[in-house]
């Protein structure tokens, strides 16, 4: 693990007892990194589990407790929203598969404690999509007003309909009809994942199996091209791996086998390498060796890992590595290249570079983002 003195938020998550040696300068930095990564509430939950709250200085403690209070209030909203979505779709006899943060909450994965997320993500079969959209509309969800380009981007090239917002509650719902982008140079059979991976939690709600939860999160982390929440998402994966491997002896075997059958061996390889490096995740050597069978040629291997290493650090000046921007731009373009053929990619990138900023400027002129002026 890269033991850089400056990544204190990571140190707290992995070795919470270290905090007992911290001085105020360390606490000052970890609070900043906590805000930058959105992980203060998770940090609180880990310190509480390890009976270390008493080691937090008085002047610092409120940052943790307030972040956790916010998380608790948000959890109640999310749980209510999961109920509303389930009920609405049941009118069309559709049982969605909950993904990402909502899935962690429903399955009570350890990483859900202190984890804030703003959208509910669900998957429905493409055959049920029209019915789902209809019944959600009747129940008060409304799609964002998009122009023709963005609408096409979402529906044809991404794997979701444009985000829906509830008219009274204001919560956002992302409805996916494929678990990975449709037009893809990397062949991943998303349907296989959805079809055979349904797993019903004790609440009667559907989530992916543990190994699929890991793989789905890994695919999105490494292919989406946006790493603003990368450190947090990698931390999720680290926690999932630790939890599942502890409670199930066969977990590693299932994970590797599943990655092979879904043809995402290379993604698993990158992911395990990155979590080991960042969080010292206890991935057994033989598992790492099996995943390494899917590594690319040496140079590409080096380029990819070097890039991922950089972008997965938190977005805070205290721990941002050199060449972060270069790595970030490279991975951004690569992610789009993977999703789209060139004849679609280039116009899309041009559109995003030139047309979108003008539209956003116009929008800003008309609305206030935050009314904080009293």
């Amino acid at each position, binding site marked *: 693990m890269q033991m850089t003195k400056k990544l204190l938020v990571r140190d707290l998550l992995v070795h919470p007892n270290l905090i007992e040696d911290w001085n105020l300068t360390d606490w000052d930095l970890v609070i900043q990194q906590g805000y930058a990564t959105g992980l203060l509430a998770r940090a609180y939950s880990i310190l509480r589990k390890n009976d270390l709250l008493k080691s937090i200085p008085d002047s610092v403690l409120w940052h943790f407790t307030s972040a956790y*209070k916010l998380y608790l209030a948000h959890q109640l909203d999310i749980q209510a929203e999961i109920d509303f979505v389930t009920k609405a779709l049941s009118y069309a006899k559709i049982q969605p598969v909950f993904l990402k943060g909502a899935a962690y909450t429903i399955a009570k994965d350890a990483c859900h404690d202190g984890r804030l997320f703003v959208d509910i993500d669900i998957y429905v079969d493409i055959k049920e999509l029209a019915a789902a959209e209809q019944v959600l509309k009747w129940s008060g969800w409304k799609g964002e007003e998009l122009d023709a380009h963005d609408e096409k981007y979402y529906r044809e090239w991404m794997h979701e309909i444009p985000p829906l917002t509830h008219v009274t509650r204001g919560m956002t719902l992302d409805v996916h009809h494929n678990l990975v982008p449709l037009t893809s140079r990397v062949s991943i059979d998303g349907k296989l994942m959805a079809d055979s991976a349904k797993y019903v939690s004790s609440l009667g709600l559907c989530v992916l199996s543990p190994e699929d939860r890991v793989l789905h999160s890994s695919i999105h982390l490494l292919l989406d091209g946006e790493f603003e929440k990368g450190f947090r998402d990698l931390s999720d994966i680290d926690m999932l791996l630790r939890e599942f491997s502890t409670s199930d002896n066969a977990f590693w075997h299932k994970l590797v086998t599943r990655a092979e059958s879904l043809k995402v061996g290379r993604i698993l390889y990158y992911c395990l390498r990155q979590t080991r490096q960042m969080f010292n995740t206890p991935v057994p050597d033989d598992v790492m060796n099996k995943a390494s069978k899917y590594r690319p040629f040496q140079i590409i291997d080096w380029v990819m890992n070097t890039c991922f290493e950089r972008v997965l650090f938190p977005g805070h000046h205290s721990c941002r590595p050199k060449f972060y921007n270069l790595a970030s731009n490279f991975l951004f373009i690569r992610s789009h290249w993977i999703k789209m053929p060139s004849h679609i990619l280039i116009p899309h990138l041009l559109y995003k570079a030139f047309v979108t900023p003008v539209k956003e400027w116009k929008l*800003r002129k008309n609305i206030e*983002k935050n009314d904080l*002026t*009293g």
Partner: protein
Amino acid sequence: MKLSDLDYIDIKHYLKTTGLSFFAGSFSVNLKSKIPSIAKGVMQLYGDSKINQTDFSDFHIVLKADSGIRRWIRPRVEFLLSDRAPFFPMPYEQAFPLLEWGLNWCVTNHCHEYLVIHAAVLEKNGKAIILPGIPGSGKSTLCAALVNTEGWRLLSDELAIFDPVKNTILPNPRPVSLKNQSIDIIKSFSKTAQFSPTVRDTIKGSVAHMKPSYESVVQRRIPAVPRYIVFPKYNKDSNLGLVSITKGESFLELAEHSFNYQILGEQGFTSVASILDKCDCFKYVYDGDLSSAIDQMETLIADD
């Protein structure tokens, strides 16, 4: 040690390098900026604030201007907290108001140990008046006038921070925000009050900030017990004065005026209940006559 013990050169130096660490109200801030109006504003309006000599700051804030070519074409300023920008950039001239609005946002978005109500709070003789107010209610003008009246202490012009454990209001004395006509009204009302330069054409019109009184800042560690809730309602044609309103009605108003009532859940409810247990509640309809408004508030405080 206070900020006024530093030279302007030192203030600018800290702002440009390691950051200026001081108490903005009850919260410790490390502020960095190369923008001259920030240095001037801090020097002018935060002079009585204590320097933070510890190694911990609650909020690490940067006010950052555009660089490169953009500097010369309608330049903007951005507010960053821990390197993240929570709002869109604003025109460069609005840097100091943006700092003030951003500091309010830091408290309302992060601090959930307290119930934070959108209200001014002033105290005299150990009794605090909470003045909740929507824009246009006249709360800020009334607040600024009271700050400049003998015996009154400012706890806050925007954020009534209620401690549900101690059942007191936490002082957060910072520059008072004034808009449009209020600026001239208060300038006439008090010849000794100090103001930042007026910034025009903001979302809310013209904005200026007034330095809080020395007594307000120096007593920042002394909490106050809430005793009255007064909802100001400016109406240029009426000076009905104080009208009693029910606690029930006030309850809903306070909940609505609170930034984090929903987040606190049950504790939000019990906090408002706790405030209302101690307070009498009024609506105050006035036509802008500040002298009679102040007399009215003085009478209210004296009435126990």
